[in-house]
């Protein structure tokens, strides 16, 4: 190996770890006092305005096309919204329909699977539902969520208190009807999961073991070790398979189909392996394509899965849907900063809720561990780049320590293996024992706070605010629920609540209406004209479907021959 490592860390990082160890006993004794570090509203503003990537100048620009023209979004998002459509509408024959279904679900992650299940519960036969997805069924951020899912079911909690937490975390910008739906449906979702056989962590009486989340005023985070997302996703996927709901994998939607009467009538899918396109006509369409993590906004590493390229935003925007809160990006405070192999990967918030405190290179506390995510992330950036109290890794990353051994001291030996086995396993693979040594963290690109605006029935809204009767959205692709900042444990909840509502609404429409009107891709042509007007480079096309991580040298030498295409 190149650098001598002791327990996974080079010697110079060990020196800082020793300082962390020296202050540990005192910090454990004074754990309760951490609350005194919680910031006031004014202080939150000071920290956010200087250290949150959203507020720092240079990262955003005004949109020049479409419904939200004139609004500010991150450059990387503007790039894909102001891009030429990848699909040429003239190459598609809309009269030759490959799939004629009641409900088309675009996206095979959590929201899509929940929507398909509820459409089926509501009486749509499985064979009249189609899930189209870019990767495999279940390859999604839903699978990767670790910490948990919020629901106010303990006696000294209530949906109303949950509502207030969501609202304050979101800087009071959230849409009332959506937060009400989120918090009021939450216990119903947990009940549904119980019935499906999701193995939540429970006490011997059957009540859920619930923990704190950043920015919450009650312990209401339900979890299944630190595989919560995986456990829910694999159960609902199993249920979809039991019900034999058809899934087309590696066949993402690349454009929505509209109708002559201004509705959504299905989508064009593209088989990434054979390059063939499929025309899907649907009585109702559910958009469940997830978020934008793989756009690497402001050059940040990301926690997100390979396919998180905001395809749904692009398609819906071209079809005339309204977007909201897209200027706010969620950076998770604790992404791995070391070792290099896992930079950016999620270190669940549960590590902090179990008692680990963030400390700087000298082993000093500098932040209340459970601020809302944007505040916590800003405080980490402040400590690293504002004050310089960070540890630099051999590859140049900077980070602060998350003192994980505290968990074993506070919760008893074995608590990490019992509750944070995924984390333990990941670090172990790279030679680090997080039960004995702290781990180095830095904020990482995590979540799309906003998205396609919906109403409480999960109907997508047009530019003028009126809902599309046949078009629905659930999960990370939609916006309005979380305002300008989502709290932990509310994304798993979001995809369940609005995936379910989208599925129920889609089924209702499919039951009560005939086939959609005459199919058209007119909107794509119209959008192309708008793009022409603003002088976009010809190679900028979207949806981009997958990021490109190929080596620079290979790309420089890559040529396309006019054969074998």
């Amino acid at each position, binding site marked *: 190996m*190149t650098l001598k490592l002791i327990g996974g860390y080079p010697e110079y990082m060990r020196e800082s770890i020793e300082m962390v160890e020296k202050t540990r006993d005192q910090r454990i004794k004074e754990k309760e006092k951490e609350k*005194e570090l919680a910031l*006031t*509203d004014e*202080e939150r503003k000071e*920290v956010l305005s200087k250290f949150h*990537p959203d507020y*720092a100048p*240079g990262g955003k620009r005004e949109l020049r096309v479409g419904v939200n023209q004139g609004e500010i979004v991150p450059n990387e998002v503007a790039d894909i919204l102001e891009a030429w459509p990848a699909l040429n509408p003239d190459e598609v024959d809309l009269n030759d329909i490959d799939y004629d279904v009641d409900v088309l679900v675009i996206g095979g992650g959590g929201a899509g699977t929940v929507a398909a299940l509820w459409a089926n519960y509501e009486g749509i036969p499985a064979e009249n539902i189609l899930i189209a997805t870019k*990767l495999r069924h279940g*390859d*999604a951020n839903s*699978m*990767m969520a670790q910490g948990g899912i919020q629901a106010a079911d303990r*006696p*000294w909690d209530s*949906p*109303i*208190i949950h*509502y*207030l937490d969501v609202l*304050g975390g979101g800087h009071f910008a959230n849409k009332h009807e959506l937060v009400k739906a989120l918090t009021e449906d939450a*216990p119903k979702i*947990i009940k549904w999961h*119980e019935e*499906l*056989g999701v*193995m939540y962590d429970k006490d011997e009486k059957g*009540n*859920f073991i619930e923990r704190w989340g950043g*920015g*919450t*005023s009650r312990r209401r985070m339900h979890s299944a*070790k630190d595989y919560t*997302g995986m456990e829910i996703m*694999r*159960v609902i996927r*199993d249920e979809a*398979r039991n019900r034999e709901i058809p899934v087309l994998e590696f066949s993402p939607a690349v454009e929505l189909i509209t109708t002559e009467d201004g509705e959504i009538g299905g989508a064009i899918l593209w088989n*990434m*392996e054979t390059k063939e396109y499929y025309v899907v006509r649907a009585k109702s369409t559910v958009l469940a394509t997830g978020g934008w993590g793989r756009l690497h906004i*402001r*050059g940040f590493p990301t926690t997100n*899965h*390979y396919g998180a390229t905001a395809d749904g935003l692009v398609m819906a925007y071209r079809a005339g849907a309204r977007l909201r809160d897209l200027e706010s990006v969620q950076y998770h405070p604790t992404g791995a900063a070391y070792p*290099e*192999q*896992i930079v950016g990967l999620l270190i669940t918030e549960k590590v902090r809720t179990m008692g680990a405190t963030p400390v700087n290179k000298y082993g000093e506390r500098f932040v209340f561990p459970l601020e809302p995510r944007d505040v916590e992330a800003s405080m980490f950036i402040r400590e690293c*780049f*504002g004050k310089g109290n960070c540890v630099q890794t051999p590859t*140049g*990353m*900077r980070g602060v320590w998350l003192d994980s051994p505290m968990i074993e001291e506070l919760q008893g030996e074995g608590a990490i293996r019992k509750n944070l086995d995924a984390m333990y*396993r*990941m670090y172990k*693979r790279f030679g680090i024992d997080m039960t004995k040594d702290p781990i180095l963290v830095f904020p990482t690109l995590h979540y799309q706070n906003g998205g396609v605006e919906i109403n409480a029935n999960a109907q997508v809204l047009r530019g003028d605010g009126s809902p599309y009767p046949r078009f629905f959205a659930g999960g990370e692709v939609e916006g309005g629920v979380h305002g300008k900042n989502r709290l932990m444990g509310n994304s798993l909840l979001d995809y369940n609540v609005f995936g379910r509502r989208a599925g129920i609404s889609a089924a209702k429409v499919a039951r009560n209406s005939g086939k959609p009107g005459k199919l058209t891709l007119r909107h794509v042509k119209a959008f192309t004209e708008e793009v022409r007007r603003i002088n976009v480079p010809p190679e900028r096309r979207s949806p981009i479907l997958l990021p490109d*991580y*190929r*080596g620079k040298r290979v*790309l420089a030498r890559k040529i396309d021959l006019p054969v074998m295409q």
Partner: protein
Amino acid sequence: MGKKIEILDVDSRQIMDDIKKAASPPEDVEHWVTIYVMGKPYRVPAGLTIMKALEYAGYRFIRSSGCRAGFCGACATVYRKKGEYRFRTALACQTTVEDGMYLSQIPFVPANKATYDIDKIEPTPTTLLEYYPEIARCVSCNTCTKACPQELDVMYYIQYAIRGDIKKVAELSFDCIQCGLCTLRCPAEIQHYHMAQFARRLYGKYYQPKSKWLERRLKEIDSGIYEKPYENLEKIREDPEAIKELYYKILYEGREKENKLVEDPLELMGED
């Protein structure tokens, strides 16, 4: 609440540029290794994961790349090292490349899942055998356990399954990411991960006790008692200062008091 933090005078834009630079992989490569991708040699920087090394070499994944964080099982990989007889397995996103690796990605695992109606099953010690009879063919060779990139005791849970101990199967298999390597390697043609999924759902549904607090809350919601408070909140929101004040009050109170609310009110009041 809140201790004044000092005001720092900083250039935010510069900080963001610095972060971008810090997070980019270093330009200079000091150490290289040679890997063999399906037999073809490529020189790649040492220290990359198998997945990133393949990309560095010029491969662009459609299959075999999913969450890229060790949770989805899409990047199951098999390999041998030069000069070694041993057959190894890995997750490409969670394993560092080594010199002389002969690598192959598994694009798909053919395996059949039993279909069932979870609501209509009454689990007994023979339920797992009824739906997955092939588990009885286990020859205890432990190849599944050796193949598991999560280091689970796969063979043990198969043995518990044969004995009908659903709880043990559920617990031992809980961290399964369903990559399918066990199933590909099994000489007895067992489909471990599907069987284990079935066991976990049975355990979650029929063996874990149901939450009474949850039942109670559902009744409250159905009764409509929260409708009025929701309306009130909407009204309070019309005054931005009032809603902010309420939010911080509830937040601080909750953080102070929550830990003291440890009694079980259902026990104090008697169950309804």
